[in-house]
Structure formats: structure tokens, C-alpha cells
């Protein structure tokens, strides 16, 4: 085990148990429901907030790339898990105070962070400021899980790298199938929803 990983997870998780409110906040942020919904809402909101033909076309293209990359990030994480099954911190370290349920899948890379960074990359391509907010949300999500004792910091970094790389790769997936992506965008425009 990487000693830096060990030190950081023990330090961050060691802060738990002192202030009940912070522990509860970490549990809520770390839950499976809030942040994934936030990332989906970011894509959904991006679709409907752009105005002007060129800005809309750009936003719609990147929302579709973002949705693809969110799906592909899951596949990427599963493939990495096949090659390397890293134990969760609460399995490897006796000192960990677990605040979250015992996940059964491997630790590296952090799947939820990969999804967040995939959504953030797509958002960043449309609006830098909004992209940084989504990246920030993904990072806070990851850190809350380190605090809860279910991820190492390097899992977060791995997840971020997977999310960003897969978003870049997803642009090629869309180019392979062009002009279907742009025809779909035209269809949504025909339905007055794009």
C-alpha cells in the first residue's frame, strides 16, 4: 500500500466521530443518490439553458458526449476492476471507522468520481466556470467517501483520470457515428426540445 494513501485516509477518516453534524453531512454527500443526481441534473440543465443557435448546438453535442462518457466510465471502471482488485481501506486497515455501507466492489478507481469528472469534463467544454463547479462537486463527493473510509485518495485521482480520459475518448465514439449525433440534435430541435 502507498504510504501517502495510508496516511491521508487515516488522517481524514480519523477526523470522523468528533462532530456528529459533519459526520452526517459526509454521509449525506457520500450517499449513492445525491451527487449522481447532481451530475445528471448538470447535463439536463446544460441542455435547456443555452440560447442562440451556435451555443445550443455546442451545448447539446457536449451533453450527448457527457451522457455517453458517464455510461462508458462505468464500463472503464469495471474493466480496470477485472485487472486489479484493490481492497477497500476498511478491509486493509483496522483503524478505519466506517461511516458507509460495506461496498462489495474493488476500491480503485473510484467509480462515482469517474462519473462526476466525466460530467464535469463535458460541462467544462461548454462553460469553464460551470465545469469547475461540477469538478468541485465530484471532488467533494470523492473526499466525503475517503472521510467515510471507503476510498483511498489515489482511488479519487484514478477515478478523475478515468472520467476525463473517457470523455475525450467519447468524442471519437460520436465522430465514428457522425452525423447521427447531429441528426439526433436536429430531431430534438424539430420536437422543439432542443
Amino acid at each position, binding site marked *: 500500500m502507498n504510504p501517502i494513501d495510508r496516511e491521508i485516509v487515516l488522517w481524514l477518516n480519523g477526523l470522523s466521530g468528533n462532530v456528529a453534524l459533519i459526520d452526517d453531512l459526509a454521509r*449525506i454527500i457520500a450517499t*449513492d443518490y*445525491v451527487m449522481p443526481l447532481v451530475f445528471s441534473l448538470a447535463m439536463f440543465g446544460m441542455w*435547456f439553458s443555452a440560447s442562440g443557435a451556435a451555443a445550443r448546438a455546442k451545448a447539446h453535442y457536449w451533453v450527448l458526449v457527457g451522457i455517453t462518457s458517464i455510461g462508458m466510465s462505468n464500463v472503464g471502471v469495471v474493466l480496470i476492476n477485472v485487472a486489479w482488485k484493490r481492497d477497500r481501506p476498511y478491509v486493509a486497515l483496522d483503524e478505519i471507522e*466506517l461511516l458507509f455501507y*460495506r461496498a462489495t466492489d474493488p476500491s480503485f478507481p473510484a467509480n462515482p468520481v469517474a462519473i462526476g469528472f466525466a460530467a464535469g469534463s463535458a460541462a467544462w467544454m461548454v462553460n469553464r466556470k460551470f465545469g469547475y463547479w461540477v469538478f468541485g462537486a465530484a471532488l467533494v463527493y470523492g473526499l466525503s467517501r475517503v472521510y467515510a473510509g471507503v476510498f483511498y485518495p489515489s482511488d479519487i485521482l484514478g477515478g478523475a483520470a478515468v472520467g476525463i480520459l473517457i470523455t475525450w475518448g467519447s468524442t471519437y465514439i460520436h465522430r*465514428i457515428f*457522425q452525423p447521427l449525433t447531429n*441528426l439526433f440534435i436536429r430531431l430534438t430541435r*424539430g420536437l422543439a426540445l432542443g
Partner: protein
Amino acid sequence: MTPDPADVQALFGRHYFYFAALATLGALQIAVSIGGYRGMWLLPGRLLTRYFGVLLIIGGAALFFMLPLWIDGPWAAGSVEADSSTRLWGKADWGDLGAARNVNDVDGGLSGTGQATWFPLSALIAAIVSVGAGALNRRLFPARMTPEQSVSADADGIELMTSESYATALARSWKRFRRDLPSDAMDLLRKADRWSISVWVWERLRR
């Protein structure tokens, strides 16, 4: 009583749907208030719509995390531990709320696939509610729902909802889509990469 994962999943699915429906409606209202698409505003005013959107998202999250106080589920007071397999069925205490929703999908929590099913349904409902409310607002508050600047003549799609209802925007956009589709498709095919599968298929079909 130890919860049956199937019961837990049904409960989580229902509660997640409430949360997602309110949050998608809220996010949609924030987005269309930024875009200026009055045909989808729930309330007759840009800022009013935006703040109501924020309220809907906060309300959805609050409802999701506070329902365990009033609804029986795998969060009975005293049994809410990090390990979600040892929970008991019942109502939660205030102190349990942070952890109540952290249930592994093998114990009945909602998986990513489950969430991916509920989210599009929520988005669809949010869009239907918004276009309905937008049309109603245009009738009830015509002065407040008229934009300062008229939409350009070549506008189509959602942009028409800056000043029109969804029904009008749909009729005009669909007519234009059908008229322009053949030329648009050819134009897009010409712009696509040579290694695009669609281009490859199109060239084979033309032979």
C-alpha cells in the same frame, strides 16, 4: 424484523422518483430561466422561476432524506449502522437521518441502473409539467410572459419558446425539420469524418 431486499428496493425506487422528479423540475426551471424560454416557465417571471427551481431541488432533497422519519423502512431507530445488512424495519430518529439512506444495492438500495431508469421518467414529467404551466402562464399573464425583444425569423426549436407556447413552437419546428431534413442530412454527411461508420454505410448504399 429484518427487511426483505425486494421491499427495500421498491421503497427506495418510489422515494428516489419523488426526489428526482422534484429536482429535475427544479433544474429545468433554473435552466429555462437562464435560457429565457418562457414557454416552459412555471411562474410568470424570470427570477421567480429561478428561485422556485432552487426551492424545488432543496425540497426534493429534504423530502428524500426526511421521509424515514414518517415512513417505515430499513432504518428503524437504533438499527442504523454503517453495515446496511443488519438494519431493522421501522421509522428513523432524527439522529439516524444522515445514514438512513446508505443502503447497499445488494441489501435493497437503488443501483445505478435503477437510478438511470427513474431519471429519464422524471425528466419527461418535468418537461410535460413545464410546457403545460408555460402555456397556462401565457394565457393568464400575457404581459409578463412577452419578451423585450422578438425572436428572430429564422429561430426554431426551443428558441421559439422565448415568445411562444410549446404547441406553436412544435408545429413550426417540426414543419421546418421535415422541410430541411434531406439537405441537412447531406450537409452533415459531407462534414462527417471519412472514417465515420455512417459515411461508410451511406457510400455502400449509394453504389
